[in-house]
């Protein structure tokens, strides 16, 4: 694990975001290392999604630097940004699939930017990505409106994974899913991250997700990153919000259920 952690793929320094008079982030620092799954948590309105949007270049920060895969985002030209965007994938909350295209065509969209890829192989690769996220073959022919919320999220993930990105950004991957669907999605993220060597940056509210897949947690509060570290480290953080969040009844329930899952999977093996 130590060697995987050596390389920093996202380095945020002194980030400041504000909307008019309302300051969302101030002096925010964050490092994300290659191959890890980092979960960003925080109360409503602490700017978790704004952070994700800043890193992916959808939101221009008021100050600070953001370095992704060695590229300084804030002063990169369009060409560099475009090249960089092919090296990451973003899954938005409800999948954000293009509603006029079928699922397969949605997954093919990023593949179209690869020069010299034949349509036949492009289609096959799209089918492969659809299968990899656990959707059945015929889901590829359907339109986003014909899919359930969970299937749309999976299809969104398939599109994010289309070009084998190095970093995947997930915005609330399990929001709105039933517990079974949510835990299946957690498993999927963990499995794909491990087998494809993905770095996963996920914004979540779901404590189960934190306990079951995240290597590290970053807590956003008071306009900055209050604490980062493993879940074990969170118990040592002396902050009322962190204590409440990780020491509350829901957190304890999630912890015990993930411990049960670990011990039962240990029995299987």
């Amino acid at each position: 694990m130590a060697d995987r952690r050596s390389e920093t793929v996202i380095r945020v320094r002194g980030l400041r975001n504000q909307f008019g008079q309302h300051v969302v982030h101030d002096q925010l620092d964050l490092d994300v290392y290659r191959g890890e799954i980092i979960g960003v948590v925080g109360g409503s309105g602490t700017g978790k999604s704004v952070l994700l949007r800043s890193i992916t270049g959808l939101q221009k920060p008021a100050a600070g630097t953001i370095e992704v895969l060695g590229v300084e985002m804030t002063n990169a030209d369009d060409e560099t940004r475009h090249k960089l965007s092919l090296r990451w994938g973003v899954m938005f909350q409800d999948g954000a699939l293009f509603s006029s295209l079928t699922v397969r065509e949605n997954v093919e969209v990023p593949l179209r930017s690869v020069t010299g890829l034949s349509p036949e192989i492009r289609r096959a690769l799209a089918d492969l990505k659809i299968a990899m996220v656990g959707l059945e073959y015929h889901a590829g022919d359907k339109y986003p409106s014909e899919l359930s919320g969970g299937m749309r999220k999976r299809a969104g993930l398939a599109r994010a994974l289309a070009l084998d990105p190095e970093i995947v950004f997930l915005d609330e991957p399990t929001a709105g899913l039933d517990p079974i669907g949510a835990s299946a999605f957690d498993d999927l993220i963990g499995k794909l991250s491990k087998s494809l060597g993905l770095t996963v940056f996920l914004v979540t509210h779901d404590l189960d997700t934190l306990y079951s897949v995240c290597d590290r947690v970053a807590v956003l509060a008071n306009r900055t990153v209050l604490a980062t570290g493993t879940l074990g480290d969170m118990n040592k953080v002396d902050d009322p919000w962190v204590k409440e969040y990780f020491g509350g009844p829901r957190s304890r329930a999630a912890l015990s259920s993930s411990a049960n899952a670990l011990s039962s999977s240990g029995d299987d093996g």
Partner: protein
Amino acid sequence: MDTPIEVQHGKAGSDDVLTVLLRGKLTVETVTSLRPGLMSLEPGRKLVVDLADVTRLDTAGGWLLCDLRLRLAEAGKQLEISNAAEQARSIIETVKTAMPDPGEQAVSGFSVRARLAAIGMSVSAGIALVVELTGYLGIIVHRFFRTLRHPGEFRMTALVAHCEDVGFRAVPIVALMAFLIGVVLAFQGSAQLQQFGAEVFVVDLIAISILRELGILLTAIIVAGRTASAFTAAIGSMKMREEIDAMQTLGLDPPTVLFLPRVLALLLMLPILGLIANLMGLLGGALMAWIDLGISPMMFQARLLEGTDVSHLFVGMVKAPVFAVIIGVIGCHAGMRVGGNAESLGRMTSNAVVTAIFAVIVADALFSIFFAQIGL
């Protein structure tokens, strides 16, 4: 640079076991160029793919190898992957378990049967639409009589608000449109009638065509575009956000609350708008006749009163309430057919406009036949 594929034949010159050395990147950029070379290989029994010199392998590369394995397996041959890096092995393993099974392919292409079925389906959908619209009309009429008995249920504020929206705010566009139509009619008519020295009949031409047909028809078309779409969008977005379901659970009746004020507002406003259109059309025609033909406003008025029967105005205005009901019912009905997504809202809104305009023109044609038959 070395060639990306190097074929090494098996020992003792036999092609029983074929070894292929791949070099460089095995990624989404290179699969298209590598695939024909790999697919054309004809090993006797087994193909060994050596990945020792592969610098990078992604899922596309994994797919290439797994696809090759499936094709070889179909021919009863084997594929062995050797010297793969740990990461590459993990990717190939993931791809192998995920390889999609297309199952039976959907039959594509058009058959005569499918076309006939599609025609039949759209005909029955059209009939179903007419039946549904009639149902909506029935519901609205029923609610109208019920609110007559229970006036307390009626939403006066909503009616006034809709009247403002449907009627008052449409006055400028309707007036301008009618004025320009009057101008155009006078201009075109004078050009033709001048050839026979019958310029003065341009007054009859303008008066009859505007009062009888154009004034109310064009007003209805503008209102259909403006109001049917607004009704569909308003009711549809409420449907989309489950507000209509919420209404029902609170004991409110959607037809009484939503449809009735809208249709009544149209019923009250469309005749007024039609009248405004008639006046503005005549004004535009009179102005153009004055400028172009020198028919003074006095002469225009005299000729109008003398040559044009009041029945023309009646024939025009009697259509207004019918058009109003058609537009209102189609707008409300389309709104209720909106599904759970924004796409269907957009589709139903444009559907409502097209259907409303079409229905208005059909109704106008039926009126023409009717009035011709009764000799008005």
